[in-house]
């Protein structure tokens, strides 16, 4: 079928963004929003990496006086908070924003303006934390600030409030993003993409979104309770007044444990997509993979107490949480089996994305296994709060989430930019990052076993910890250098990479059916799907349906289980309201660090912004008591 230039002209006029700064601010194009999320997150990853190098340098020799304890404590707090709240979860949301409509053959997300709002609010959280750092009121109590240390008696000033409000920003942004992603996946699938024909990547994003919806309220609640204790003298966490400091830990980890799976599950989506394409064979065990993701998502809510094994809780509970924490290894292990089985039954190609998957398996499994060790409530009494646990969580987060993310970046880079990244420099970067990471973090298992606790700005001479700390520093530096090569590759390939075409890797799923880079509206027509791998099906040309309007923005809404076309939904155009609403929310959140009156007053502002946002653009009534009577 030859492309119709009049169609292209009309659809382009409807979907393209206004030019210049206005277009930048008002865009609701999910790809542009995702791109700015990813760029922001990568920049923050770099800053967090610099903090890490600073800390590693400090720990290279015992009793080092290069960093003051205050500066070191701020550094580990800022590093952890940035990576967990401002990088890991947002970047996974961003990958969902970017890829979900493309993989669904859809023209945009379910709620385009909500997507823009999520980014601006996320940016508000980023600025809250980092401007505070520039103003020297950096939070300094770690990435989970336990009371009473975080309470009004032991942490006067506003550092802890900055931390708590930064979280509020990012959690509201994440909740909005999750509702958006979940609604898109449930209601905007192409005709024929029943739930049984939905790729594993989309299952992963759907489950991660639902998990976010059910876990983030816990941290919003608990940080609000902390702010209330600090600001208006509530006593949720004051033992002397009937409160309980352990209540904080329960509520925090009820969120905190699912959080790490919210980070990991999208990575399993990336791995599934990459393994399928680069093994040149359909994924083995699709149902097993999907059921594993669902069971990991469910189980994740029943494990939180394993972060509290040293608190002194009743033994029976500890036994239960040990068994549950070990049990989650079963679905995770079966996923690994399915991916390896896919490679076994296919013809693997060793392009960079596949190499990242291999690095993921090699590294993440170590993290998973050290997790099995810490899952034992008994053994955890030796391992928790030491460098062993620092090693464990870096192995699962870096190996389990960042390596698949880097692979996904290389895999989908051509779709986003129309260019290929350099394979050679990609491999060099990989060796640096992966080799450096393992050299840097493996020794930390041993340091923990040798008695080195975590969150210490220095350690005594004569403990036998010196050499391993030096190796850890060397590895970390190598890893960061590898990261710089990766970023340089990404930047240079943008202008000088080989043109990729629509489908450089012969991918199996629908995003490869759009042009590279995809136009604002993604697809001229709506694809019809008959299998899990629509791009590999025998039927060429690709079956599509027309009929979506091209003179105004419209998306297709289908039914939840069978993806039967239901109706055509108007889709939002570029709008100023997301940034206006985000500004109103920002004003309320920041002001409420300083006075509780900000809440009612800020709410009025937010109400005004939301009214403008949701005000339907319809003609004035002619009839009725307030009609114009014309």
């Amino acid at each position, binding site marked *: *079928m030859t492309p119709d230039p009049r169609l292209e002209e009309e659809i382009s006029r409807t979907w393209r963004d206004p030019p210049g700064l206005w277009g930048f601010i008002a865009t609701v194009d999910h790809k542009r929003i995702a791109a700015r999320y990813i760029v922001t997150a990568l920049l923050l990853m770099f800053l967090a990496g610099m903090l890490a190098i600073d800390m590693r340098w400090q720990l290279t020799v015992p009793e080092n006086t290069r960093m003051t304890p205050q500066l070191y404590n701020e550094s580990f707090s800022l590093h952890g908070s940035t990576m967990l709240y401002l990088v890991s979860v947002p970047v996974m949301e961003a990958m969902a924003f970017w890829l979900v409509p493309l993989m669904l053959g859809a023209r945009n997300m*379910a709620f385009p303006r909500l997507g823009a709002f999520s980014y601006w609010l996320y940016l508000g959280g980023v600025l809250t934390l980092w401007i505070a750092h520039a103003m020297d009121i950096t939070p300094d109590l770690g990435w989970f600030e336990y009371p009473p240390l975080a309470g009004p008696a032991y942490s006067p000033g506003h550092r802890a409030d900055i931390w708590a409000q930064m979280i509020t920003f990012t959690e509201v942004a994440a909740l909005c993003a999750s*509702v*958006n992603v*979940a*609604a898109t996946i*449930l*209601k905007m699938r192409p005709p024929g993409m029943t739930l049984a024909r939905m790729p594993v990547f989309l299952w992963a994003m759907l489950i991660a979104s639902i998990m976010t*919806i059910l876990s*983030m*309220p*816990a941290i*919003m*609640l608990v940080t609000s*309770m902390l702010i*209330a*204790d600090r600001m208006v*003298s*509530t*006593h*949720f966490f004051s033992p002397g*007044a*009937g*409160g*309980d400091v352990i*209540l904080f830990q*329960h*509520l925090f980890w*009820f969120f905190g444990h699912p959080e790490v799976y919210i980070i990991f599950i999208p990575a399993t989506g990336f791995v599934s997509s990459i393994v399928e394409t680069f093994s040149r064979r359909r994924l083995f065990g699709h149902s097993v993979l999907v059921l594993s993701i669902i069971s990991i998502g469910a189980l994740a809510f029943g494990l939180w107490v394993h972060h509290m094994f040293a608190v002194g809780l009743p033994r029976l509970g500890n036994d239960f949480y040990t068994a549950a924490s070990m049990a989650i290894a079963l679905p995770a292990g079966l996923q690994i089996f399915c991916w390896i089985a896919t490679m076994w039954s296919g013809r693997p190609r060793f392009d960079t994305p596949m190499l990242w998957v291999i690095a993921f398996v090699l590294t993440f499994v170590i993290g998973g296994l050290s997790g099995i060790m810490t899952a034992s409530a008994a053994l955890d009494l030796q391992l928790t709060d030491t460098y062993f646990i620092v090693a464990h969580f870096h192995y699962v987060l870096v190996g389990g989430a960042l390596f698949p993310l880097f692979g996904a970046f290389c895999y989908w880079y051509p779709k986003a930019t129309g260019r290929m990244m350099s394979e050679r420099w990609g491999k060099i970067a990989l060796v640096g990052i992966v080799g450096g990471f393992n050299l840097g973090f493996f020794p930390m298992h041993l340091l923990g076993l040798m008695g080195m606790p975590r969150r210490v700005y220095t350690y005594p001479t004569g403990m036998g910890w010196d050499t391993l700390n030096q190796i850890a520093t060397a590895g970390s530096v190598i890893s960061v250098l590898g990261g710089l090569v990766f970023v340089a590759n990404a930047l240079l390939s943008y202008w000088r990479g080989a*043109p990729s*075409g*629509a*489908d450089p890797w012969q991918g199996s799923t629908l995003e490869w*059916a*759009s042009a590279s880079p995809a136009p604002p509206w993604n697809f001229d*027509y709506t694809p*019809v799907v008959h299998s899990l791998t629509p791009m590999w099906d025998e039927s*060429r*040309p*690709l079956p*599509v*349906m*027309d*009929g*979506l309007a091209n003179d105004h923005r419209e998306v297709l*809404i289908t039914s939840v289980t069978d993806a039967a*076309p239901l*109706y*055509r939904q*108007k889709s939002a155009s570029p709008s100023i309201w997301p940034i206006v609403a985000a500004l109103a929310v920002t004003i309320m959140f920041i002001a409420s660090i300083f006075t509780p009156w900000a809440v009612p007053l800020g709410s009025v502002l937010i109400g005004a912004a939301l009214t403008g946002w949701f*005000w*339907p653009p*319809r*003609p*004035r*009534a*002619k009839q*009725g*008591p*307030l009609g114009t009577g014309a």
Partner: protein
Amino acid sequence: MNGPPDMKIVGTLSNLPTSAIGSRHLVWWGNVGFMLIEGTGFALAAAAYLYLMTQAPAWPPKGDALPGLLWSGIFTALLLISEIPALWVLRCARAEKVGGVRWGTLVLTLFGIALLVPRGFEFAHLGVPWHQDAYGSVIWLLLVLHTTHVVTELGESAVQTVWLFTHQIGDDQFSDVEDNSNYWTFVVLAWLPIYALIYWAPRAV
């Protein structure tokens, strides 16, 4: 390899309607998502209340007054009664009755304003300030959370009322009225366990 793959048109979507009702509608799912978020928040706040209650030697702690039943009773009764116009406006929305949704949403708004009166008195008769002890803190937390709920819903109903009376109403707006009614029902239902926890649990223990 260079451009998008060759495609052939096998059908058309142009005959599809441009709106839908109930769970067929996309925004219904967004509404449900936000209700799920808030419901989870309430459940966790209730869990915090129960946690503190089971840790305490006495509940309310010795010396703390019990919360008053009069104004909370009035509030609860009024809230339950307000469910009648909420359900009525839902039916009007589904039947696409212009007059019904206009006046029904106005009634809901008036109920919302009226509810703030007993709610204000409830705060005054909780018996313990939030800064006295953990018991005071947590009952105030629950009541503040629910009040935010009521105020948000009042705001939405009020704005909707103004808009409905001054504009021509289309399919999407009938869906909005439906979503608002569902949310009102959620506010009513969410109150019941919270009411039990604040006002009756201290009397039962």
